[in-house]
């Protein structure tokens, strides 16, 4: 298990580095950084000074190594836009996005797993078709639209939940639902197909020949084997949720990482963009690593 984790960590570090190099290169090639920092009314002389001060005239490799060595010491630079240290910005925003992502994931699993299992057990029945239809409709519904509907119904009409902000924990419920919604169809479909496949396996026939109860057969013998692809896709979905929470965060005015990413990309606030990319990459890697470890726990054959 230890060598398994070390191998994964080494791979993860490589992935992280690649992502950073790519994003660094893209931000530096996508227009004149100095010009956007200086603002629309700047003169050529202003821009030249900024270019010099920020070291933007140095070769890209040098700039990257400079950034990376500071980042390694925890110094992520200063935001051009907020005129504040980037690490402070991240520290404020990250918990919001993590809480939102985990809320969304929990809701998604609580809905997708039971329905997926039910659909598989009743394969071909009206229940199965009904569940799959809902999944299809869910996939077709855009997240921002669902968010607005929820705001109108539960926030404005019924006034059950706050429509924006996170002053109380209830503020996470609606955005959590919206995020969950995007992940539910894929999770549900995969749970269903995995369960259908597992339920056809020879070892299920053996379990039945042993006289085990239906719940033991479904929840112990079939689900354990169907769970592995679901765990992997859950990790991917959680990554999407955390990385792609821009829309949800802006609809519900949540001060999270996604919202920060959006602001800084449009304003070419390069140090912030780079830091957000770094954190999203780390989150993604951690989540996938956790999923792989969970799968190794689930399937003894992977524990080599």
């Amino acid at each position, binding site marked *: 298990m230890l060598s398994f984790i070390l191998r994964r960590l080494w791979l993860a570090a490589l992935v992280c580095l690649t992502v950073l190099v790519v994003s660094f290169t893209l931000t530096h090639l996508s227009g004149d950084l100095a010009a956007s920092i200086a603002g629309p009314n700047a003169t050529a002389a202003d821009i030249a000074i900024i270019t010099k001060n920020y070291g933007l005239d140095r070769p890209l490799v040098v700039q990257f190594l400079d950034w990376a060595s500071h980042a390694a010491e925890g110094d992520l630079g200063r935001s051009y836009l907020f005129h504040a240290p980037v690490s402070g910005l991240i520290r404020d925003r990250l918990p919001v996005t993590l809480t939102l992502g985990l809320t969304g994931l929990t809701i998604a699993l609580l809905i997708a797993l039971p329905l997926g299992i039910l659909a598989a057990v009743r394969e071909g029945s009206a229940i199965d078709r009904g569940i799959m239809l809902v999944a299809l409709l869910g996939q077709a519904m855009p997240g921002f639209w669902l968010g607005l509907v929820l705001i109108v119904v539960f926030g404005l009409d019924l006034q059950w939940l706050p429509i924006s902000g996170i002053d109380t924990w209830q503020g996470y419920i609606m955005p959590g639902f919206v995020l969950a919604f995007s992940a539910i169809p894929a999770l549900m479909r995969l749970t269903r197909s995995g369960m259908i496949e597992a339920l056809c396996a*020879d070892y299920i026939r053996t379990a039945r020949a*042993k*006289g085990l109860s239906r719940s033991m057969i479904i929840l112990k*013998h079939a689900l354990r*084997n169907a769970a592995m692809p679901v765990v992997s896709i859950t990790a991917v979905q959680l990554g999407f949720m955390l990385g792609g929470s821009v829309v949800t965060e802006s609809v519900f005015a949540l001060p999270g990482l996604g919202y920060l990413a959006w602001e800084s990309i449009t304003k070419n606030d390069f140090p912030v963009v780079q830091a957000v990319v770094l954190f999203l990459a780390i989150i993604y890697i951690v989540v996938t690593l956790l999923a792989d470890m969970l799968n190794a726990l689930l399937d*003894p*054959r992977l524990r080599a």
Partner: protein
Amino acid sequence: MALVMPNAVLSIANLRVSFPRMEAVRGVSLALNRGEVHCVVGESGCGKSISALSVMNLLPRGAVRSADHIRFHEHDLLGMSERQMARLRGDKIAMIFQEPMTSLNPAYTVGSQMAEVFERHRRTTRRQALDRAAELLARVGITAPGMRLAQYPHQLSGGLRQRMMIAMALMCDPELLIADEPTTALDVTVQAQILRLLHKLQQEMGLALLLITHDFGIVARMAQRVSVMYAGEVVESGPVEQIFKAPTHPYTRGLLDCIPVPGVTKAGEPLGSIPGVVPRIAPGFLGCGFRDRCTLATAECAETMRLRDAGADHFYRCRLPPNWKQGTAP
């Protein structure tokens, strides 16, 4: 029919199983006494597994089962609910399957899979169930049972897995064991070991064993009774010595000609073989299923074929008289 045995452990009468476009089993009757080994032989696809699964009510989806009766002792298995059946399965009636590679759950240890059947039927603690599992692993000749209990199926060889399947089937001391080609997937040398083991356990525990095979050598060594199946029917059934000495159905004779049986096939005698393949039986099929391949087929063979007596407890399903001779048959 003459197959009624009052003290039978298992008695199947006129079992039929159909799938949407085919009839897999057409009127099979079988009976099995306490401590008896009854072999079912026949080519691939003739309905052996489907007949066995019918007893357990574990048929694949789409299969429809009907019968005059399926009885385990005095219990009517046909009328049982799934819940009642589940109480018998693994306890009084156990089954071993052909594929030891896929019949075990890859995600659980040997110990866990063996223990759960005991816990289920005997309501014991995990500790007691594991002790019982270790005892049975030792009994099927597995050394260091304690270590094996903690292993996963993928860490065991095919032969070990099949031993473990046998041990698992015997956890609750069943009265009836159904073994569906338990050695087909194994190496030849391992096959012989597993069969010897099965035979020994059957005698020690007084098991009624319904053993499916397509190997007449196994029949000769283990069985008291054999039923030959062809295209969903039992075409001949009788005591083993009778069948070897006086096979009556042309298909049985053909099969026996294919297989050298020690003491029955004389050295130097050429082995026969039956040309052709098993037909697919569509609903509404009448007459002898073997007639495409039978050299003695006549128009009469397309009519419904009744069961005939060929001696004490020996039946066959063919138009020919019991003592017909090759070359002189009408």
